[in-house]
């Protein structure tokens, strides 16, 4: 017996194939592409908005300068989850410590860029576009990559889950990217009327003879939206999580992403954000809560994907627009800083610390200095994970930081 989902997938493919010659070529290819393959690689980006305090995330617990600079915020040797003789995770990051032990997490230290900008807006734009100068910053680094990829199906090439505005990192020239607030908003409500649903679907698919490029763009977006709506619904109906996700906003979004990945959704990039890292005042409790959410959610996600045999094709990165000052301020908080650690999770990563912890006796205007340009991480992802031309996308040559194992191809 045909499932509802199978039937819809078939009928919409046939409708696409029956397009007249004015059909945009990429839609024809999309229709012909068929089902998702299990080897297609996926990137999940977790953005930590506000500027994560790297020093209290990977804590140099033995460092005298650290302890003196942070009379109220320093975390002691007896509290951290030790990584080695000098560094340890914030005590609320049990999940990350577990993943490190499993060999599925790498910690890239001292990441940033030259002449750091300490404005949230500016620095986030820099991370999103991989452009630091006064060049045009209308396209994102992921957006540029998506524009390079051959269009492959009706599924959105990238999905952003969240209430906030779509991150600039996903801004494309050609490929529309979707933002999704919740699953409810990703389903077309037709009041249960099948005839209406069919009329909408077929009216959208009818060939347009016009050369109006806005119309072609909107038609492609509409077809994409209708198919995505069906598939999201189907994916969620059939999924059983293999682990218990913690009760948090981030975990909920990651669970949804795991469902879509497991359903063979052909989205290349999933993007979520966790906000609240701008801890200028009474940082300790707020930061602990955020790190707990971050680490437990990502850990559950990785375990779930592993149990569903999907982890091999998934890479997760977590970054923030900047770190924070070494010295705490007068309100038991920290102010905007510069270099910070970045996190990468998956089964293909070289687990453990990559690069040295930034020196605390050699600061840049009170902040740890970067030694690893963030674009070197992007370069590794673009070149080795997605086999895309990193130089073009990043607007320059950046030596990849080899955080992926040698045997991934």
């Amino acid at each position, binding site marked *: 017996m045909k499932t509802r989902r199978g039937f819809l997938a078939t009928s919409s493919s046939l409708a696409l194939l029956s397009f007249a010659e004015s059909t945009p070529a990429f839609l024809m290819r999309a229709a012909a592409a068929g089902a998702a393959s299990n080897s297609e690689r996926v990137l999940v980006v977790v953005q930590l908005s506000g500027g994560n305090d790297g020093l209290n995330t990977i804590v140099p617990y033995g460092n005298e300068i650290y302890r003196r600079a942070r009379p109220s915020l320093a975390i002691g040797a007896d509290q951290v989850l030790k990584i080695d003789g000098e560094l340890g995770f914030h005590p609320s990051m049990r999940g990350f410590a577990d993943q490190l032990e499993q060999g599925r997490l790498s910690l890239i230290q001292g990441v940033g860029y030259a002449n750091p900008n300490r404005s949230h807006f500016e620095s986030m734009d820099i991370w999103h576009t991989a452009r630091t100068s006064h060049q045009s910053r209308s396209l994102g680094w992921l957006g540029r990559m998506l524009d390079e990829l051959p269009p492959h199906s009706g599924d959105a090439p990238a999905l952003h889950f969240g209430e906030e505005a779509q991150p600039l990192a996903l801004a494309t020239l050609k490929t529309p990217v979707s933002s999704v607030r919740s699953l409810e908003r990703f389903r077309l409500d037709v009041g249960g009327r099948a005839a209406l649903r069919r009329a909408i679907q077929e009216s959208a698919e009818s060939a347009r003879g016009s050369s109006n490029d*806005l*119309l072609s763009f909107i038609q492609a*977006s509409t077809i994409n939206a209708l198919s995505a709506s069906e598939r999201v619904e189907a994916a969620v109906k059939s999924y059983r999580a293999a682990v218990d996700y913690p009760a948090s906003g981030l975990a909920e979004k990651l669970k949804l992403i795991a469902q879509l990945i497991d359903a063979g959704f052909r989205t290349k990039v999933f993007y979520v954000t966790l906000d609240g890292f701008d801890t200028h005042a009474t940082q300790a409790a707020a930061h602990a809560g955020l790190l707990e959410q971050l680490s437990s959610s990502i850990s559950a996600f990785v375990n779930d994907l592993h149990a569903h045999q999907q982890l091999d094709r998934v890479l997760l990165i977590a970054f923030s627009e900047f770190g924070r000052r070494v010295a705490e301020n007068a309100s038991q908080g920290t102010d905007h800083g510069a270099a910070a650690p970045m996190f990468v999770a998956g089964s293909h990563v070289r687990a453990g610390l990559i690069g040295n912890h930034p020196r605390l006796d050699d600061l840049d205007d009170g902040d740890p200095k970067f030694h690893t340009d963030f674009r070197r991480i992007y370069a590794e992802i673009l070149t080795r994970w997605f086999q895309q031309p990193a130089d073009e996308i990043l607007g320059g040559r950046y030596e990849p930081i080899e955080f992926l194992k040698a045997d991934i191809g």
Partner: protein
Amino acid sequence: MNSKFHEIDPRWAWRRYEPGGESPWNKRRAAHLFRRAGFGADTALLNEAISSSPEELIEQLVVGVDSSAFTGQMNQMMRTLAAGNNPRNLASGWLYRMRYTPNPLHEKMALFWHGHFATSGAKVEQPELLLNQNELFRRHALGNFGQLVLAIARDPAMLLYLDSATNRKSHPNENFARELLELFCLGLGAYSERDIQELARCFTGWEVNQGKFRFNHYQADTGVKSIFAEHGGFTGDDGVRVVLEQPATSRFIVRKLLRFFVADGDFPEALVEPLAAQFRADGLQLAGVMRTILGSELFFSEQVAGQKVRSPVEFGIGLLCGLDATANLNMLAEELGALGQSLYFPPNVKGWDGGKSWINSATILGRGNLARRLLTNSETRFGGRKLPEYLAGQGVVEAEAGLNRLLELFVAIPIPDSSHARLLELARRGDAWADVLHAITVLPEFQLS
């Protein structure tokens, strides 16, 4: 799409539209005028429109009609909304105004200026100040651009939003000066960093005190400034004057008006310059240039029909206006925010990008779901009645004629025959005009204006 604008003869483009022959004055063109120069029209308004000439209609839109009763009612409503001290409450009031205003072009211009001089309630938390700024946009909607800029430079909401309020002699804050050049008047590349620094000095001492503009002469830098090769002990007003005298100002504003009213995308210099010259000759009065644009051959031509993506506000209010509908505007304001356009909360100082940026799968589905809610919610009234009775009163009864009537009302360009056939099938089911309307709102063509 831009390439074809390069082939357009500017003399033809801005010549006055003469109805007849291949471009008759009909309901389709009247609907186009009301969609672009306002927020939409219902059948009654379109019937009225085609019995006047386009010239008369445009004159009425530009000059405006006496609206003192409506304005009084609105002022009272807006003050009530502001009293809650939450700027999120203001949007529904403005939507009401857009839906019912006797002067739709003035309201559309106010929305244009809101996007141009973008100021967000996320930073300016006092609703009173946002309302005052909004009134300023309406007052100067089709007035003199120079006076509007001078007023904006003193506007407390703007001063707070762009940190001019902390612009001190010893530490000039360049934020407002930079945006005045980059986003408000000249556009990127038409000035130097040095011009920004010198211009910022002109505005030192322009402060906000208890919600009002105040000039603090202790903080004012009275020294000599050099901006665009002019030197003098310039005040802020002088600074604005120097910027407005740059010919780039007229071109920048005309280009943006064309994007907003005529077609998404960039217009070639050859099409911009004749209007910019008129704008300069008029001393930066907006009414003349808007008359030329709206009354032009290009504006009423097939080249620009369906060449703009409807903004969320145009989508929502357009649907209500077309069906003479009243709906829950708090709900509408919130949903429009989810679709990317929160009034009084533009995303950043650049305002809304518009065009393709409105569209992605989520907003397409969101638009469809919003339309369904508006059409089927028991709170929505159409001409004071329920939808089926209203439509029957409008002569939307027989399937094919009814469908064509609705398409004429809402869709800027023809839809494919097979889409038409599918909608007709739906209409023939008899019980489902709300479904037909819903299906129309999800058509790719419906997203265009």
